[in-house]
């Protein structure tokens, strides 16, 4: 027995189903054959690229990345081939880039901060062992000479050698020597060519001398067996390493001095008993070592604290000075009686329109102590160290940033002032308020309401204003007592850049640990500011 209620429900469900069907048909009918073709074509390109990537990853046996690429490909195809899920079709392209290059990299920074990634610890252990053995190789005295023909195939060189016993083998730096029996030989039984390869003639050898002299072809799979090298391109000799690697024991022994270097998995290198280690090592996870180094070493902790304080001071002073000047100018030029306001306005926007990195370099020239315009012309040849004295450099940075930033605040404040209703001022004047009182008690509070989100954004921007610092002072003057390359005007982000990319000793792990610190600070600042402005509550 059915009640009328459920019958009505059923009727509604049928009607809804029909409606959905109708809208689906309408949607499908409106999408022309051209749209479908474009869609299939674009997806085809994406899939072709993915299949290629999957193939390469399969050959490299990199299963983690393989499964990630596979997953993304499947998700993309699923999103675009199903009928429902319209929002996903619009969001997916942007989200893929966002997830990889903005969100994944943050997590990846977190991982790198726990490794010793950097100069000397770039790769895995196998590469480190090979490179150690190769770099310490020397020619074995009175070693036999192998008759050599240098072969070329697809831009890569191989050695075709005939050993003193007359046996012929071929090999290249990536694959050890293997015996061949189809080589072409000359009258004396020496190999001179191999099918599929081109033999280099004398002129070609001379032209590529450096590349050929750098080749080292391993004799066998065991790196301890040494490799063949050639000084002249016509004969190869056996080179053996001073270092002997014992894989089972995990040791590297220097045959000439007898020192045993033992593998240390916590450091990612071979270490002797006296503490000396062999370079290069390999990348290992080191736990909190980078954070311990940053906060525990005096020579790094001191600079880190002063850099952090200066970062906050710089960001705050930048906002305060540019806002003060911008607001002052907005009030001065917000008078309808004044003529030529537009001319002033356009000229004052110029610093904002000029590319920021160039502005900093131009000012660096003008503030140059020996030759700059400021010292030579304005101060009559005085050598004032604008960019090399700790405090003057800080002042110069704030000053140049004022030049860069006041037009923005001027524009913003002008807009905000003009949106304050004129009646408020009239009412206050009628009530007997003086101009200063009108400004302080009525205009300023109203203005702050509308510009405070922009002030927070400006603070966040200046917190990471790398270009200005790096182009103007390069972070200098340098703090010579610090354990890392850091100077008096460095902010956190320029310190990260210098530790990771400037100079011979790059330390990605430590730089990432600093990055994590910036993330935490920025997160704290945003939490506090969003609480204050309630900007998030207005989202709908």
């Amino acid at each position, binding site marked *: 027995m059915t009640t009328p209620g459920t019958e009505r429900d059923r009727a509604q469900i049928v009607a809804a189903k029909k409606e959905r069907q109708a809208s689906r048909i309408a949607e499908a009918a409106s999408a022309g054959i051209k749209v479908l073709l474009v869609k299939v074509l674009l997806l085809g390109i994406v899939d072709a690229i993915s299949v290629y990537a999957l193939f390469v990853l399969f050959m490299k046996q990199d299963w983690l990345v393989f499964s990630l690429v596979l997953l993304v490909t499947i998700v993309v195809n699923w999103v675009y081939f199903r009928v429902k899920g319209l929002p996903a079709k619009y*969001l997916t392209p942007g989200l893929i880039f966002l997830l990889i290059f903005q969100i994944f990299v943050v997590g990846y920074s977190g991982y790198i901060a726990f490794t010793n990634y950097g100069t000397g610890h770039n790769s895995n252990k196998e590469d480190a062992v090979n490179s150690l053995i190769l770099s310490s190789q020397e020619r074995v005295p009175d070693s036999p000479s192998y008759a050599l023909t240098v072969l070329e195939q697809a831009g890569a060189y191989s050695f075709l050698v005939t050993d003193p016993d007359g046996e012929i083998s071929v090999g290249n730096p990536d694959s050890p020597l293997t015996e061949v029996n189809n080589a072409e030989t000359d009258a004396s039984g020496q190999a001179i060519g191999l099918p599929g390869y081109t033999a280099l003639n004398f002129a070609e050898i001379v032209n590529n001398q450096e590349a050929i002299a750098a080749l080292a072809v391993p004799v066998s799979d065991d790196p301890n067996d040494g490799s063949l090298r050639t000084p002249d391109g016509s004969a190869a000799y056996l080179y053996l390493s001073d270092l002997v690697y014992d894989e089972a024991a995990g040791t590297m022994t220097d045959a000439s001095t007898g020192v045993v270097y033992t593998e240390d998995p916590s450091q990612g290198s071979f270490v002797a008993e006296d503490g000396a280690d062999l370079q290069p090592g390999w990348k290992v996870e080191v736990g909190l070592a980078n954070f311990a180094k940053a906060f525990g070493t005096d020579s790094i902790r001191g600079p880190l604290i002063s850099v952090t304080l200066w970062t906050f001071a710089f960001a705050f002073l930048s906002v305060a000075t540019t806002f003060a000047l911008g607001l002052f100018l907005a009030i001065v030029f917000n008078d309808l009686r004044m003529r030529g306001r537009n001319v002033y306005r356009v000229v004052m926007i110029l610093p904002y329109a000029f590319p920021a990195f160039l502005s900093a370099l131009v000012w660096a020239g003008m503030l140059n102590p020996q030759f700059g315009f400021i010292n030579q012309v304005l101060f009559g040849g005085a050598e004032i160290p604008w960019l090399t004295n700790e405090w003057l450099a800080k002042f110069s940075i704030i000053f140049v940033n004022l030049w860069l930033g006041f037009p923005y605040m001027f524009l913003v404040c002008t807009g905000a002032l003009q949106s304050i209703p004129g009646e408020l001022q009239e009412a206050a004047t009628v009530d007997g308020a003086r101009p200063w009182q009108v400004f302080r008690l009525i205009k300023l509070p109203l203005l702050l309401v509308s510009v405070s989100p922009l002030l927070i954004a400006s603070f966040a921007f200046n917190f990471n204003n790398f270009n200005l610092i790096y182009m103007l002072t390069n972070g200098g003057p340098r703090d010579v007592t610090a354990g890392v390359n850091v100077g008096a005007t460095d902010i956190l982000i320029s310190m990260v850049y210098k530790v990771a990319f400037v100079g011979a000793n790059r330390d990605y792990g430590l730089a990432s640990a600093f990055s994590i610190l910036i993330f935490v600070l920025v997160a704290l600042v945003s939490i506090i500011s969003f609480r204050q402005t309630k900007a998030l509550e207005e989202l709908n």
Partner: protein
Amino acid sequence: MATTTIAAPSGTDYIPVKHPFNFGRWFRATGWRHLVGAVMVIFSAFPLLYVLSASLHPGGTLITANGLFSQIDIGSYVTLFNLPQQPYAAWYGNTLLIGGITSAGTVFLGALAAYSFSRMRFVGRRAGLLMLVLVQMFPQLLAVVAIFLLLNGISDIFPAIGLDTQIGLIMVYLGGALGVNTYLMYGFFNTIPASIDEAAKLDGAGHARIFFTIILRLVAPILAVVGLLSFVGTTNEFVIASIVLITPEKQTLAVGLYQFVSQEFSSNYSVFAAGAVLAALPVMALFLWLQKYIVGGLTAGSVK
């Protein structure tokens, strides 16, 4: 506002009283404002005139640049394009290319996302918007080390889009496309009445047709602002470009000019100045041309 007290009542034969010119009163009312204006004009424009004059001084160094406009010659501009180690023309082309593709891609990806947030209702919509606002607070350059190592890893698989390729750099920039701009666009999309979409839907247009042929045209001003801000931002970007692009022929103006001037700061100055003037021209022209739109867009987001 103070002038309202002497406003003429309409309909009467009011003849304004001609005050004799009084300097003191003029100065107190608007004169001092012109004084402030003059100071600010010098402050704002002087560095730009300085770099222009330095660029016109042939073979000039930092010290000769101090004699403003004492000599006018385009020799430095000619030198600039014939430097053996510094392919300035290539840098210029690269900057325009990378900036152009990045801003077009940013506009497109941002508009797609803004359309779905503005016109569709789905699970996770509010969370998605919140996430975009939060992501804005963390600029990409904070993760510069990870970006470098990620591209280094991609190079092993796909050398064509890894380190030292412009495609790789553009991909990284597109990662920041949604974070900064979607929220700006979302607000503008919301001001277009939804009844327009509905009318088009009744006439049989599908979602793609509505988006590409109707909405995109109506939101053109915000697309221009986002495109321009993204172009200017890309032109100014140094950190990521400097670690991704290694070969001089592939570098952008920011990377190339910085390395050029930092090698021999004072002796190369006039050639650098010529490069700076040319580099600034397209950005400044775009900026002054689209000034009106930008000022509107500024109050909604971007900072400098």
